[in-house]
């Protein structure tokens, strides 16, 4: 059989000029903007486009600047890494770390604020080094699918913040630091005592583009990470092997819900993925730096960092001991300054996770109760943990507080199977397994798995295409998407400009009545303490004691100060209180002894209620939220008719 005749080559045409397509593109964009602006139905109002531009342009600029800065450093230190398939991802991770470190220097010097522009500007200069990345070629269908998954994140990013952790920490802290111009922390603002490499970048983004910028930036990180996992998996395992690993991330509710939020789990996942890639390429120092920043951003990265360190020691200690030592130094370098800062402030280096002083009675105070999450820690539940995690996790309860795609089962099994023969997969599986074990020993919250998720997904690239894993992905997709889409539907009106921000927040922030009272009727220079309340972001005044974990700051303050709780706040200049009505139930803390539950939870709550009656005046109440004013010394009535006659 003869070979088929080759098809005739097409006749060469004239070389296309880039000018007409460019012009057409500009015209198309102009027409699109004009259409949106002039749409009589107001489907998407002009304000929405302005909001997207105001947050999106700074977010994109900071991401591009990070890649430039990372690329420049990479080009100078490991030129071959720049052109590797993962070069752009490595540069992005390295650049974000550099920006966080740069902001950290300004922050430690007490000069937050305009520093944001400086750091971004300097980062952009990295492109002057002309790093030549090899950007991945992605089929149009993959772009479309990825965009579809991330669309809810875009809606989330452009809508007013309502997420508990954003309101209490991720957005509240950058906003507070920006207005204060320096770092915060201590018992009154424990979130500020954590290492903050990501939140300092958020601070810069907030300064440049308002509240949407950090969220859109994070959405960009999420997209880059999904693309990075796909790229690395295809580079390592072959064409088509990156789709399911990327979709395992995008198709898991726990991953997807954070896409448009200003969170830090995905950033940590990015750093750990770059670290894992560097480990496989034996770039030990780069791995160390990435591990260090991941650890600084989230201590939940520790088990994965430990796994990477063990692999590095196994593989590199004999052949390049100096590099391993440098890697170890690089791993702790991003964290140690924060520990020193805490120590200098008289706190435990690991505060707020450790170091809460005992009560006057000597009893210990616990910051986090890991036992609260998951389905139990007995032998049976530990053995069933993977099963429970995939089949019984709930997005709205302490039963893992999340949901994952069922395709993780296939990816995990395939990776373990492939680890028999593939040394690289074996290392990735080892790291992921250690990460999972560490997670299982700590608080079993599904999102705490996110730091290791990208590495696990990459290992899952070993999954053979003949396995019927798509079925598992498809069957679990509705359960993972439904909560996200429900939430997206409630946000569409405000994002498209068809609902006011005020109306949206009234509907979606339970304390909005009380927050509105604080905004409209309490002096802007007042100091507000949040007791059993977490909505710090929406408090315009200087605020302290917002809730974290189980309302730890409030409980601790009350527990420590007892009868003087409110007087001690007044001594700090606090004049107003935002108070939530909480009820700690025994069934929520079955692992606590009745004495501890009473001493650290129910008694402080009751005592606070009594003290409010004694020492404060309620100004506003709506549902479970109240605004109180601390009673000043009684103002003289001036002219008391009961006084003796002059």
């Amino acid at each position, binding site marked *: 059989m003869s070979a088929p005749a080759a098809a005739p080559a097409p006749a060469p045409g004239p070389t296309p000029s880039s000018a007409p397509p460019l012009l057409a593109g500009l015209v198309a964009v102009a027409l699109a903007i004009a259409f949106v602006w002039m749409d009589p139905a107001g489907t998407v109002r002009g304000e929405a486009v302005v909001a997207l531009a105001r947050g999106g342009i700074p977010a994109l600029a900071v991401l591009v600047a990070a890649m430039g800065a990372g690329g420049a450093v990479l080009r100078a230190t490991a030129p071959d890494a720049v052109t590797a398939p993962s070069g752009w991802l490595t540069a992005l991770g390295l650049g974000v770390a550099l920006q966080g470190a740069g902001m950290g220097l300004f922050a430690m010097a007490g000069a937050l604020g305009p520093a944001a522009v400086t750091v971004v500007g300097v980062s952009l200069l990295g492109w002057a080094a002309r790093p030549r990345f090899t950007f991945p070629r992605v089929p149009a269908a993959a772009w479309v699918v990825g965009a579809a998954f991330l669309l809810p994140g875009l809606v989330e990013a452009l809508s007013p913040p309502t997420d508990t952790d954003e309101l209490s920490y991720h957005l509240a802290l950058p906003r507070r630091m920006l207005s204060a111009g320096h770092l915060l922390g201590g018992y009154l603002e424990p979130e500020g005592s954590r290492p903050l490499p990501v939140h300092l970048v958020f601070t810069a983004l907030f300064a440049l583009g308002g509240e949407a910028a950090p969220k859109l930036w994070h959405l960009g990180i999420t997209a880059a990470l999904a693309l990075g996992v796909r790229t690395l998996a295809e580079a390592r395992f072959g064409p088509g092997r990156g789709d399911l690993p990327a979709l395992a991330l995008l198709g898991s509710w726990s991953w997807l819900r954070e896409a448009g939020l200003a969170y830090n789990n995905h950033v940590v996942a990015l750093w750990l993925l770059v670290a894992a890639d560097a480990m496989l390429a034996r770039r030990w120092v780069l791995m160390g730096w990435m591990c260090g920043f991941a650890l600084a951003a989230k201590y939940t990265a520790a088990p994965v960092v430990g796994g990477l360190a063990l692999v590095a020691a196994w593989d590199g200690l004999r052949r390049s001991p100096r590099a391993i030592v440098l890697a170890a130094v690089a791993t702790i370098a991003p964290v140690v300054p924060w520990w020193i800062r805490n120590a200098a402030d008289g706190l435990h280096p690991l505060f707020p996770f450790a170091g809460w002083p005992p009560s006057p009675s000597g009893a210990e105070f616990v910051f986090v109760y890991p036992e609260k999450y998951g389905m139990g820690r007995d032998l049976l539940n530990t053995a069933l943990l993977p099963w429970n995690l995939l089949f019984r996790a709930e997005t709205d309860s302490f039963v893992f507080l999340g949901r994952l795609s069922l395709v993780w089962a296939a990816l995990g099994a395939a990776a373990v199977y492939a680890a028999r023969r593939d040394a690289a997969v074996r290392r990735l599986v080892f790291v992921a397994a250690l990460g999972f074990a560490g997670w299982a020993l700590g608080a079993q919250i599904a999102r705490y798995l996110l730091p290791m998720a990208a590495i696990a997904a990459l290992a899952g690239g070993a999954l053979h295409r003949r396995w019927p894993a798509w079925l598992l992905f498809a069957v679990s997709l509705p359960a993972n998407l439904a909560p996200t889409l429900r939430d997206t539907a409630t946000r569409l009106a405000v994002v498209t400009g068809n609902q006011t921000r005020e109306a949206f927040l009234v509907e979606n922030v339970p304390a909005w009545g009380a927050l509105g009272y604080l905004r409209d009727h309490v002096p802007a220079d007042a100091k507000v303490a949040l007791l059993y309340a977490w909505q710090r972001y929406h408090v315009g005044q200087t605020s302290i004691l917002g809730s974290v974990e189980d309302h730890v700051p409030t409980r601790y303050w009350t527990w420590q100060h007892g009868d003087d709780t409110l007087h001690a706040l007044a001594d700090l200049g606090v004049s107003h209180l935002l108070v939530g009505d909480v009820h700690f139930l025994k069934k929520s803390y079955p692992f606590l002894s009745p004495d501890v539950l009473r001493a650290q939870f129910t008694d402080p709550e009751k005592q606070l209620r009594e003290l409010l009656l004694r020492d404060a005046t*309620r100004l506003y109440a709506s549902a479970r939220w109240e605004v109180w004013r601390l009673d000043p010394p009684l103002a003289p009535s*001036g002219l008391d008719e009961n*006084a003796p006659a002059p």
Partner: protein
Amino acid sequence: MLLLVTAASAAVLVIAASDLRPAVGQPVRLTASWSGPLPAEIAWRGVDTALGAEARVVPRAAGPLLVHADDATITLDVQPAGNAGAPQVQADARSLPAVEAASCRDDRYPALAGAWVAWCSTTGRVDRATHLGTRAEVSLSAGATAPGLGPDAVLAADLGLWRLPEATPVPDQTRVGTGSVGPPATDGTHGVFAWANRVEAFALTERQREQTEAAPLPGYPTALAWPFAAWVESGGETGEDVWMRDTTSARIPLARTIRNERLVVGSGRWLAWVDEAGVYVQDTTRGERRAYPASTGFVFGPSLWGPVACWEDRAALRDGTGDIDVRCSDGVTVARPGHQRAPSRWGPWLLFREAGQMMVATAAELVFDDDDPRAEGGGNTVAGGWRGAHRDAPVAWSFDWPAAGWRVERWDGAAWVPGEALAVGPVTVSNPSGDAVRLRPVDGAAR
């Protein structure tokens, strides 16, 4: 619909006195309604000391005493003698197990609408009413989260007016829709509603809604003493203030000082509010403002039955010597172990909360003396009689009475003389000898 919008001008508009019939030597506090910039520069005349919008005078001789503040005047009718001491009236309390204390979304309820306890079913909205005397229970056709409560009346802005015991709203009443910033107030015939930029007060059967420019604080109830209506505003350097619309719908400051005047309520022709120093009850027609020193106003506002105010008193709690008790200006007191809170008063009944339970206390007796704000009659106050003084002419008292089985007793200078049985409804009782009357339950009457 006719809209009338009026604004205040900066001036002293009226003067209030803590007692319009003081005895010689009895200090009187005078307050000018000052709407101008602070500190107030008021030309007081006829007073002993003045401090901005407040002044003090101690009358030296019986007879009329004219006081000026700028162009406003008030005349005190100084008496040769005055009553002394305040009565203490005990009240027996029982629980109301059928009414869940914490069932309402808005914790100002359950509360009294006249003799009816307005309370919430499992909906969290006020949609039930139980009569304290007859124990009749009504399920309202709809529930409101924060309605206005008046004598036998429940008013919701978007649902209309219920006249108890009817279960359905009165037809053809004006409904003003949603968006009001606090609970309305009603006297059963009129209503007052607060919006972000105005207050509207009108007869509920009429379409004409008279508006007064205002900035009511959200969450605070309005108050009605028709044709007057009052509300709370934030006055910046003066803190919270109580403002009032007068008969021409103009706004005037009722209580505007450096203290925080708030939680205004109304009943009949009286308005009451609190500040850090006490409770104040203003007679809107006569210009008398009684002041009761108290440590109150920290959560729930005062309750008013005519000029009788009841309030949460936390003086003992702040001193570290006790807890929160309920006190009333006519001497009714509920001081039991634990906190007694959220008082709501009508007639002899005092609704309150204690340890998560709804309770009702019934006064053992009520005494109306000749210095009671409701006392009508001429003559002079002379020495001798119940609490050391009496008038030398007959005295009468008019009020709404809700409880069956009570009778009147009159002080004749030596003893209480049994009189007629007291009817339920608007009543007038009198004492020809110009001294006190006492209301007491007939032996065996249900409480």
